[in-house]
Structures are given as C-alpha cells and as structure tokens.
C-alpha cells in the first residue's frame, strides 16, 4: 500500500471528519443539521473548563476512576515471556469501559437540553451504562438491542429494565448489533427535536468517532501515567479487542506517536476467517455504512454480510473509521481470535488471576497468550480488560456444560 506516513498519527480527523479516505458524514438530510449541532456543542464543551471539571468529578466519584493498572503475575509466569499488565476497565461502575464515553455524551446531551436518550447495544454494556446515567440524571432512555442479543445477554437486559430504561428487541435483518444501530437511527430521524443519540463506539457519522475516542482516551492517558509510576517508562506493547473499536482506541490513541510502542487490535474471528466471523479488517474492504466509510464485511454487490462472534459486543460487520486508517498507514497491527480461542482465554484468566473477563476482552487475552511467550521478560505488555464477565456467565456456563 502506497500511503504517506503522516507527521503525527494523532492529528485526525480533518474538518469534514475524514481519517484518510475513511470516516465522513453519510447520513440522511434529516440528521445532518443534528450532527452539525452536536459538533458545535462538543467543540464548545471541550473549550469549557467547567465541562471537564464536572466530568472529572463524576469520573472519580461515580465511575470510580482511575482504574488500576494491575500486574498479572500468574498469567505472566504461566506464559513465560512478557510482563503482562491488565488495565482494569472492568472495575468501573457498570462493569466496562463503556461508561467513560456515556458519561461524556450524557453531559453533552444535558448541555444541549435534550431530554430523551437513545442507544444501540450489542452485549448490553453500552445499554447498561446509558440506562445508568439516564437514571442518575432523570432522562428518558430507550435502548435498541438485536433480538438475538436480548436472548444471549439476558442479565444486562434485566439490569437495563431495573434502571428504568425501555429495551426494544430489534427483529429486522440479522437481529444483532448492526440492526440495533439501524433501528436507533430510524428512531433518531423520527424524534429529532428532543432526542440525543448516544453511540456506543468509535463509529457513526462525524463527530461521533472523534468524540467517543476523546472520552475513551482517559484509558490510555491513565495507563501512560501509571506505567511511568510503576516501571518508570513507556510500555512496549498494547493489546485490545475490537468490536467498533472504542476500548482499543481509548487505550491506543495517547500512544500513537510513541513509535517504540507496538500496538495490536484483536478482531473476532468467530468460527474462523474462512467461515462466519466478525473481523472487518481481516475479511472486509472499504464501504459505506452507518454514516461512515470504513472496512466492512460485504458481498460483491455491496450488501452487508452477517457477522458472527460468540461475543455479542464484537458481533458487528464494521469497525471505527480511524482504525481503518491506522490499518492502512500501518501503525496498528490488526489480529483476530476465534470463538474457541476466546473461550480458552476466558477460562485461563478466571483460573489464574481470579478475574472473570467479558467475552470481548477474552479475545485480547487470547492473542496475549500468543504474543507474550515470544517477547523477552522485560517487555511490558498492557491488555485492556474492557469488561467483566458477569453478563456472560450463563452463556459460557451453557457452552462449557454442553461441551463436557
């Protein structure tokens, strides 16, 4: 690929929301004025110290930040190579990194005077975080969730309902995350005047990929400071799983210009890359969906294909546009882990560290199991433990019992 290396990997997007050829604003005219308003409101909020001050207060006392950077001693010993640190995003209130972004967007919605919040969710973690902050601030909350995901992530459906949200099971298309996003967009087009669309990942039309990245960058910024304090230097590598790519972008972005840091994103390879999977970079090509140009799984006619992953949060045929760009410029290596590899990693981390991970970051752990043994003992590797596995306990329990 003949793409010029930029001076900085952190200067995007341009004013039209493009990261190289990726990103943009591919939305219906009805929504265009809304995303322009959102961009204006976000630019103003960013420049307002009171906004950041208020965020910081909630991040500390409500979310429970900073999240620890924990040396996984037994996992390190077991793998016999790199020194492995876990960034403990699963300890956040609501159990995943999703809350970092939701807090920011809900603060924005409040500034914009919006009283009704909609969201799409796959695993239900973004839905739970949105329902939680809507409860906290007295806002109406409607969450769209594919009917297949409603089935496999029941604990989160119950949580959202307890928090006062309305969960709408989406029956159209493949009945997973992409269809939940379609349905949320249809709601937004219909309820333009009072509704704020709280997108759960670094995808969608500009400015969402940027805004979500900025709210999630606290993960990487904390990691940098914590590693400096513990080891007195930068980490040597970073690993994170990718659905749309928000936990990964949050960890990666502050390190993009630190050229000594190797960066690995892990997509979901489902049953394997030659069968049903959800690895858009490994198995897709650039196309346009959900407001942006990015790598997508599709057929020769440009029809979007069904994704598959054991993990509802990774079961999406696309990826955030900035990741597509980081792939093309070669700054980030995109790998993939299968359902079976993720299940093995899920069990290994549970047994060795007493931490049950969500199935999503279990994909990242699966690649750590391959990468760490090949690295020297003084190599510092950070994995984003983006969420806890409570929501997956019934599903994984069934699978493991069925297998035995």
């Amino acid at each position, binding site marked *: 690929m003949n793409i010029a290396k930029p001076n900085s990997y952190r200067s995007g997007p341009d004013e039209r929301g493009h990261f190289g050829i990726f990103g943009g604003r591919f939305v219906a005219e009805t929504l265009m004025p809304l995303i322009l308003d959102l961009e204006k409101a976000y630019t103003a909020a960013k420049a307002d110290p009171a906004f950041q001050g208020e965020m910081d207060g909630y991040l500390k006392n409500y979310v429970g930040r900073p999240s620890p950077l924990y040396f996984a001693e037994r996992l390190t010993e077991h793998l016999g190579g790199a020194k492995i640190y876990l960034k403990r995003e699963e300890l956040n209130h609501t159990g995943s990194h999703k809350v970092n972004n939701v807090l920011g967007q809900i603060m924005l919605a409040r500034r914009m005077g919006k009283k009704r919040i909609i969201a799409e969710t796959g695993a239900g973690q973004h839905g739970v975080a949105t329902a939680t902050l809507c409860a906290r601030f007295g806002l109406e909350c409607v969450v769209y969730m594919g009917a297949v995901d409603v089935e496999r992530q029941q604990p989160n459906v119950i949580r959202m309902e307890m928090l006062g949200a309305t969960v709408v099971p989406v029956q159209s298309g493949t009945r997973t995350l992409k269809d939940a996003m379609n349905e949320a967009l249809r709601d937004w087009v219909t309820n333009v005047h009072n509704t704020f669309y709280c997108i759960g990942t670094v995808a969608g039309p500009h400015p969402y990929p940027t805004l979500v990245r900025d709210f999630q960058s606290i993960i990487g910024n904390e990691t940098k400071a914590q590693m400096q304090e513990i080891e007195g230097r930068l980490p040597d590598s970073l690993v994170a799983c990718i659905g749309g790519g928000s936990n990964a972008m949050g960890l990666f972005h502050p390190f993009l210009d630190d050229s000594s840091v190797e960066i690995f994103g892990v997509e979901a390879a489902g049953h394997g890359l030659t069968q049903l999977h959800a690895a858009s970079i490994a198995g897709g090509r650039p196309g346009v969906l959900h407001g942006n140009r990015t790598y997508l799984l599709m057929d020769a*006619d440009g029809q979007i294909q069904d994704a598959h992953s054991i993990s509802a949060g990774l079961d999406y045929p696309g990826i955030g546009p900035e990741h597509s760009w980081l792939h093309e410029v070669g700054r980030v290596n995109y790998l993939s882990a299968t359902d079976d590899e993720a299940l093995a990693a899920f069990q290994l981390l549970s047994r060795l560290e007493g931490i049950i991970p969500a199935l999503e970051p279990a994909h990242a752990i699966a690649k750590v199991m391959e990468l760490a043994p090949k690295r020297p003992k003084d190599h510092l590797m950070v994995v984003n433990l983006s969420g806890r596995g409570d929501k997956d306990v019934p599903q994984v329990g069934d699978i493991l019992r069925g297998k035995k």
Partner: protein
Amino acid sequence: MTTRIDTRFAELKTQGRSAFVTYVMAGDPDLTTSLEIVKALPKAGADVIELGIPFTDPMADGPSIQAAGLRALKIGMTLRKTLELVRDFRKDDNVTPLVLMGYYNPIYIYGVDKFLADAKTSGVDGLIIVDLPPEEDDELCIPALKAGLNFIRLATPTTDDKRLPAVLANTSGFVYYVSIAGITGAAAADANAVGEAVARIKRHTKLPICVGFGIRTPEAARAIAEKADGSVVGTALVDALKNSLDAEGRATAKTVNAVAELTAALAQGVKGAKQAAE
C-alpha cells in the same frame, strides 16, 4: 443538459397539472414481475418512476420497504440486475422519467464512474441517494451531474432557511421534500404544513418540488397535489404488492394488477387536484 425529468415537468407545467410519482422496489417480488410492474406504472398514470435499489441496511425506510428490499435480495437482485431492468423497460418506453433511489454502498462498490456510465446507457435519468448529504457531494453528486444525470436531493423539516441553499446548490431535476421527520411509511403530514414548507423552498429555487413520505390514499395525494408540483407514493404501493403475494411470498396472477389499480386510483386523485401551487 435536459433529461426526461426536465421534459416531463415542463409538459406538466403547460398542462397545469401536478406530477404523480410512484416508488417500487427493483426485483420485488421477482425479476419478471418487477419488470411488468414497472411497465404498467406509466399506463396506469404514473408521471415519474422511482425504482428502489435493494440494500440490506435501509436506515431511512420503514418495515414495508425494508421487507420489499429483503424480498428482492432473496431472489438475487443486485445493482447490475437493477440497471438491466431499466434497460429492458426502456425498450418500450423512452419518455417516462426513471429515477433510481437507494443507499450509497452498492454504488460505491460497483464503482462510481462505471455505475454512472452504465446507468446513463441503461436509461436512468436521475438518482436519489439517501445517505449522501451535500457535505459528501464529491462522492457521487458532482460526478453524476457531469455524466448527465440529475441528482435529486431530499429537503426535510429539519432543513432550515440557512441550510436550504447548500442543499439546493447541486440539486437538479426536482427537489424531493420529505414531509415529516421520520422514515418511509410513517404518519402523513398535514397538507397545510406541507403547503407552507413548499412555499418556503420555492423562495430558494425554481425547480419543481415533489412531496413524499406518508401519502397513501387518492384523497391525500390530491391534497398534496394542490400544494406541490408532485406527490410521491411508495409504501402504499409496496403494501398492495405484498398483499397480493402467496404464503411463500411469490407473485400471483393478481400482483401486477394490484399495483396498477392502486396507481390508477392515486393518479385519478392527483388529476382531480385544482391547479397546482405556483
């Protein structure tokens, strides 16, 4: 550049009549029936044909048109076959304007330049691409205008006076006013509110203004025809088609007629309208 669209609206203007625009999905419920339906539309009184390009993820469409797209995809409909359908239609009809309506990804994957060339030779006159706002004009709108195709833009209730000039800048053929903030098949807009919106847009453009979304009956079509240069009906026709199918979703002997009869009734409504708004 004068397209069949420009010619048709000029004719209607001399007749003092508002246009009746029909929408159906290409390949619904199968290729042969779909071609017969498209051929039947002008005979039943359609002045302009909008032909949907099926897409897996139609974000601006309600359940009826979503289902129509899935029926078409199920029988293997593609963008290439959609263009072939237009070419076959043009064998007998070289005057009725035909506009393709859909989403950008199938066109992007087909290749913009190749698509525009093939669309032009197949007999397509214009494009309505829902997810290409003026902010993305470099993608398809400007190349389409260069290739001699109209690029018909949607204006909506959220398009305010400040934004309208940007929306209208590269629009040609006609302006499609979406009468409600919402998806296809949703509730109808009030004809008076539509009248005001059309008047507002007319202060910014000389192009004809057609109004769609939520029009289902001859009465509603007539009410809109009195306020605008055209009314668009889609979901009601798609529903009529669907109701004629057998339990497996296949065409029956009634299918083509079901669409043609509703088209004729709606066209009658439009023709009964008093002089269209000037």
